Every structure is written in C-alpha cells, then in structure tokens.
C-alpha cells in the first residue's frame, strides 16, 4: 500500500475515529486517501484550533487526540497547541506534512524544520524518511503519547514518503529501549510514606493533573477519608476531588483559595500526587509548606526535586501507588486527625467566597453561580486563560475528573473554545460549555464556522468586559494603575459575529438571565454563543509574584450564610438529558 494509506491504517488500528486538520500542498496524498476513508475529518479554520481540539478531545476522553497540519505555516500554527499539550501533559499526536525528502534543507516552498521547532515542546518527535517506517512510527507515537507521563508526539511526513509503496507489517511490536516508564512505586518508599502519614498530625493532600491522567480520583478520595486529610488541587487537578466535600480546600496558589494557601502553610505533611509544583501553585518556593515533610508521587522522575525538595519521593503511576498506600494504611488504625479535620472544616467555612450578587454590571461570581446552576455534574466546562479561568477555578464547583479543562502550564489564550469543540466531539452525549474572555475568544472565533459546519453543539460564554482582564488586574495591583494596552477599545458585537457564522447568539446583561439563557442553549442542541456583559472592575485577591502563599493581597468577598452551600446543580436525569 501507499504511505498515505499506511498512515490511515495505523490511525485506525489505534482506534482513532476522528481527526482535526487542515489540508495543504504536501498533504495532498494523505487527504486523497482521507476522501475515501471512514475516518471522520473535521476541517478546522486554523491549525491552532486543530491542536487545541485534539487536546480537548484527549483531556475529556482520556484517549489520544489527533491533529493534522501541512508543512511550513501549517506546522508552525500547530506549535502553540502542541506546546499547550506538553505543559499540561495531554496526549496528542500531531501529524505534520513536510516537503519531499529531496527538497528538505533547500528552503523549499512551505518548508520549515518542524522537528527542530517542536523538539523542546513535545514528548517526542519522528520524521519518516522511508514509507516503510510509517506503521512503526505512528504506533510508537501513540504509545509514547499515552503512557508514562502523557504528552504530545509529532510525526513529520514528507510528501514523497506519503506517496511511496510499502508492505504493511502484520505485527507491530513497540521496541523503545530508552523508554520504560516506571509504574509501580518502590515498596520501601511507599512504606516510608505510610509511616510519615501515620506520624503526621496535620496532613494535607495536594492533587494535580496526574491524578486525572492516571484515573486515580477514587483512590485519592479514599486516602483523604482514611486519614482525614483535606485536599487542595492545582488548576490541572480541579475536579479530581469533589469540591463540595467538606474537606475540599479548592485550588492552591497565586490565584488560589485562601483556605488552600493557609492550610498548606500550616500542614505538617503534604502528600503531593501527580503535580509538578509550578510557580503558580507554590508561590515563593522558599516559603512553601514551611512546616511540612513532603511526599511526592509522580510518574515523571524529573519532576521530583525539580522545584521543591521532598522527603519521600515515589516514582510511578499514581493509581498503583495510592492503592498500595491504601493497602498499607488500611491495616493500621490510621492517624487520629479529628482535631485537624475539624479545624480545617471551620477554617474553610470562614473563607468560602461569596457567589450571589445582584449588581449591574454583572459580577463574574454571579455569572459563574448561574452557570453552575444551569449545568450538571456531567457537563464538561472548558475555560480560556485569564480572569475568566480563575473565576471559574474559584467559583465553579467541580465534582468529577475530566470535566474541567483549562490551559494551565502554557496559559494559552484561545484554548477554551477549540478545546470545547474537541471535548464535544469526544463526548457527544455530554453538554460542553466554554467559558472565555473576550480577548481570548477573538483569537479563535473563526472556528465558529467549524462548529456550525459539523453541528458541534458547544455553548461559548464570552465574559465580555472589553479588557484583557488578568493583565489589567496586574496593572491595577502592581503597576500603579497604568493601564497599558489592555483596554480593548474596538471589539466586535459578538452576537452579530456569531450570527454572521450562522451560529445562534444571545446577550446577557442582568442577574438571573445567564442561567435561563445557558439552559436554553444547552437544550437547543445547537452551537450557541452567549455574550455576557460583566463588570471590568471586579478583581480577585491574589498572591503577588515572588511572595509566599499566605501573603495574599486584595479582600475576599466572603459568604456569611450557609458557607458550605454550593450552587444547586441538577443531575443529568433531572434536566432530561438523554
């Protein structure tokens, strides 16, 4: 068969049924085969959206997402999405076209050194120089992308390699002598961790994206219950522990909850699972968890000791290690941490953020409260980057993993909408809502054409304040209110913009409108945009860069009544979801 046919066969053998891509000159052989294949191809309107959609697909489903871009500008447009996936450990395979092998290095039309460009932002990359290499390369790419610490893999496919003939091998064995991810944690280390936990009086669990990747939410919850430890998460870990649990502290870090920041500061044992201690999570590392012995469980050995010194490192898969830890712990009486647990619950209640506001212009808290009330626990929400993201992280209560998708590490504006598109394609039975800012959405709004063409019924909520809100916030707090280039003076009418693409659109301006509008949009089963006019002056308390987690600036608006009450969230049955 031809190389291009081998590409499709390899994808199909990996169970891929949908790809997000954009054709180009060197991809003509591949797209000619796609014409006849059963593979569903979604034509995005910008390659960056193909990569983000593949990423959203991967995060929502746990499967590997696939995106395709042509050589040169197609490949460079994929780069932002590849880097985003790399920073957040999302498994995607990016297929890039390349000029013919005889032209490589000649600055041929649409030639770029894709391997060179993507080397620092991908888990691995391949360039096929012979058609016969294709099956092995693509299968290995999927293996690398989804195992160990997941990540993006790039496959560069020169045009003549797509055209060349090969015999497709009957059996493909993955042989990567330099790649053997550790799964089982070292038993001695696990034992040490158990002993440390038993001795602790004030344990806190810090859960990261690794808990979600390894599907170990259940184990994590058991551990929390067993030892009475409150759980804080990184942004990537949001949803791995039900946030309405009285032991949930919310997100940790620069933009984190006060309850998390204070309890991590106080704890004597921090059990960090599948997190990499990013600077946004730790604040000043020298002031991070000053009283704690730290246990760090991570599948990537290089993450251990990279940013924070740890007492007990355990390399391996979080699910396997937590199960092992639970087996040991359940044979003991467990530590008696009732005092600590009670203290944490009370402290948590004292700093629950206020959600209800009847102000005009709309407060983001109120908008997110209404979003919470309109969706179910099965709804997948994605966010863009900036204040919209942090408001969602604070005020939206997640109960399940893989339901809150956000660009953490790279902080990629323009992520939310295409990621929602990918998530909806992966999970067609679930509602998908993207919460974006006006700046970020404008970067990718051309893909309204894609959701219209393929009838991908995502709902995009644009929190519209005519500012680049997060940078504006920093300028207000740290740059003497010198608002440089963050006021978006000329912006489109988003309702008209969506309508120009044939997408339904509504504007929300008053308290109470968001909930109904969103519910109706979700029930319509059609792609919809909701333009939400919000107050630009609403800013979050935060930890200034370079400060410790307790050095929060800005006042919390705190809920005084029923602090443990979270917005009412109907179940899927109640909303008549079928």
């Amino acid at each position: 068969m031809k190389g291009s046919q081998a590409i499709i066969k390899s994808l199909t053998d990996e169970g891929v049924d949908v790809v997000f891509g954009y054709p180009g000159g060197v991809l003509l052989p591949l797209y000619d085969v796609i014409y006849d294949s059963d593979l569903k191809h979604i034509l995005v309107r910008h390659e960056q959206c193909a990569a983000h959609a593949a990423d959203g697909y991967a995060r929502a489903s746990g499967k590997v997402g696939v995106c395709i871009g042509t050589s040169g500008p197609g490949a460079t447009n994929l780069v932002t999405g590849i880097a985003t996936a790399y920073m957040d450990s999302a498994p995607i395979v990016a297929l890039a076209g390349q000029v013919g092998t005889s032209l490589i290095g000649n600055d041929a039309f649409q030639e770029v050194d894709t391997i060179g460009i993507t080397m620092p932002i991908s888990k691995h990359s391949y360039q096929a120089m012979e058609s016969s290499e294709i099956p092995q390369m693509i299968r290995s790419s999927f293996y690398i992308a989804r195992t160990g610490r997941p990540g993006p893999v790039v496959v560069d496919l020169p045009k003549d390699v797509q055209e060349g003939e090969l015999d497709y091998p009957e059996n493909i064995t993955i042989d990567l002598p330099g790649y053997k991810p550790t799964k089982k944690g070292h038993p001695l280390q696990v034992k040490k961790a158990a002993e440390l936990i038993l001795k602790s009086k004030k344990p806190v669990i810090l859960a990261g994206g690794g808990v979600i990747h390894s599907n170990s939410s259940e184990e994590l919850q058991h551990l929390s219950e067993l030892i009475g430890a409150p759980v804080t998460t990184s942004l990537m870990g949001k949803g791995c522990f039900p946030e309405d649990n009285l032991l949930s502290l919310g997100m940790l870090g620069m933009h984190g909850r006060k309850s998390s920041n204070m309890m991590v500061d106080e704890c004597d044992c921090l059990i960090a699972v599948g997190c990499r201690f990013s600077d946004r999570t730790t604040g000043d590392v020298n002031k991070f968890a000053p009283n704690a012995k730290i246990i760090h469980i991570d599948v990537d050995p290089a993450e251990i000791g990279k940013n924070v010194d740890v007492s007990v490192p355990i390399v391996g898969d979080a699910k396997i290690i937590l199960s092992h830890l639970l087996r040991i712990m359940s044979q003991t009486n467990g530590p008696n941490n009732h005092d600590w647990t009670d203290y944490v619950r009370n402290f948590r209640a004292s700093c629950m953020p206020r959600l209800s506001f009847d102000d005009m212009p709309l407060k983001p808290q109120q908008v997110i409260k209404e979003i919470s009330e309109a969706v179910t626990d099965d709804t997948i929400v994605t966010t863009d980057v900036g204040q919209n993201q942090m408001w969602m992280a604070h005020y939206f209560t997640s109960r399940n993993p893989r339901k809150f998708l956000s660009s953490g590490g790279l902080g990629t504006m323009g992520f939310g909408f295409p990621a929602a598109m990918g998530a909806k394609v992966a999970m067609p039975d679930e509602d998908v809502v993207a919460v974006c800012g006006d700046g970020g959405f404008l970067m990718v709004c051309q893909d309204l054409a894609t959701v219209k063409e393929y009838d991908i019924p995502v709902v995009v909520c644009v929190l519209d304040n005519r500012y680049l809100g997060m940078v504006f916030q920093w300028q207000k707090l740290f740059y003497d209110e010198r608002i440089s280039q963050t006021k978006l003076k000329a912006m489109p009418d988003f309702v008209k913009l969506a309508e120009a693409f044939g997408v339904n659109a509504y504007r929300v301006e008053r308290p109470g409108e968001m909930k109904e509008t969103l519910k109706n949009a979700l029930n319509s089963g059609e792609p919809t945009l909701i333009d939400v006019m919000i107050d630009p002056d609403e800013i979050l308390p935060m930890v200034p860069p370079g400060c410790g987690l307790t050095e929060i600036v800005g006042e919390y608006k705190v809920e005084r009544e029923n602090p443990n009450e979270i917005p009412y969230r109907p179940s899927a049955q109640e909303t008549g979801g079928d």
Partner: protein
Amino acid sequence: MDEQRSHIISALVLHRPGVLQRVAGLFTRRGFNIDSITVGPSEQDGMARMTIISRGDDKILEQITKQLNKIIEVIKVRDLDAEGTVIRELCLIKTHATSERSRSEIIQYANIFRGRIVDAGPENLTLEITGTPEKIDALIDLLRGFGIKEISRTGPTAISRGSKTI
C-alpha cells in the same frame, strides 16, 4: 547553595540523526551549563556514546541526568566520578615555526608531552596530542611563545576504569 562542580556525564544513546540536537537543545532550554560534548559510535551497533562535561551543583546534576533520561533515544546516563575515570582529549595545534631553533624546540616539547608532529610546512608545524585537558592546556601554554596559528580540540571523552560499564 551547593558547590558547583564539574561533572563527566556519559550517555549511551541511539545513533540516529537529531540525537545530538536533542541533547544539546535540552541543555540550552533548561539553562544547564555545557562545557563540551563529544559523540561517536559505541561498542554496540546502532548506539553511540556521548561524553558531556558540565558544571553545576548536585541539584542541577540530578536534573541533568533525569531530563536526559526522559529523551526517548537516551538509553543510559551515568555521572562518572573523576577519580575512577579515564578521560582523554585530542588536540591539534598549528604553530608558527620558521627558524631551525624554534622547529627543534617545538619537536622536543612534542616529545616530552608524547605528542607527534603530524604536518609540517616551511612556516608551520602541526602537533597532535592526546591526554587530559590539563595536559593539553599545559602544552598549549608552552607553545604560545612560538606563535600559535590554530588550535582544534575535540573536547574530552571518558570511560570508567576497571570492569565497570554503563
């Protein structure tokens, strides 16, 4: 802050195009120091051995080895301890040499350092020397007075003493 030390890192890697770029790129991206890097085929087919000389404290070294191990083409990485390691570098030195006297002196120095004259012209001599980087430095210092026209050094390569292998 831990003490900054020089480290000899030996890595067994798949002998494929782009591997050197991956390794060197890792050092650049992560801000690790790199004094020299040498690479050539190893005793095993399809595998090459790299010797990387790097400076850093223990924490940085730990990151270097861990990050190197993450590269799919890297099979094994070891930080060799200086005492238990044979370390050698090759250097070619082209000196200015017009007078009889300077030519014979240069040849004598070459002999003392167990070097060889590998090329001669009416106005120059080229020496080859292998040894530890310190020994090469010493010879270069001696030859400076004659007028060095060009130096080409390979950077050190290393192997552990005794029967130990990586």
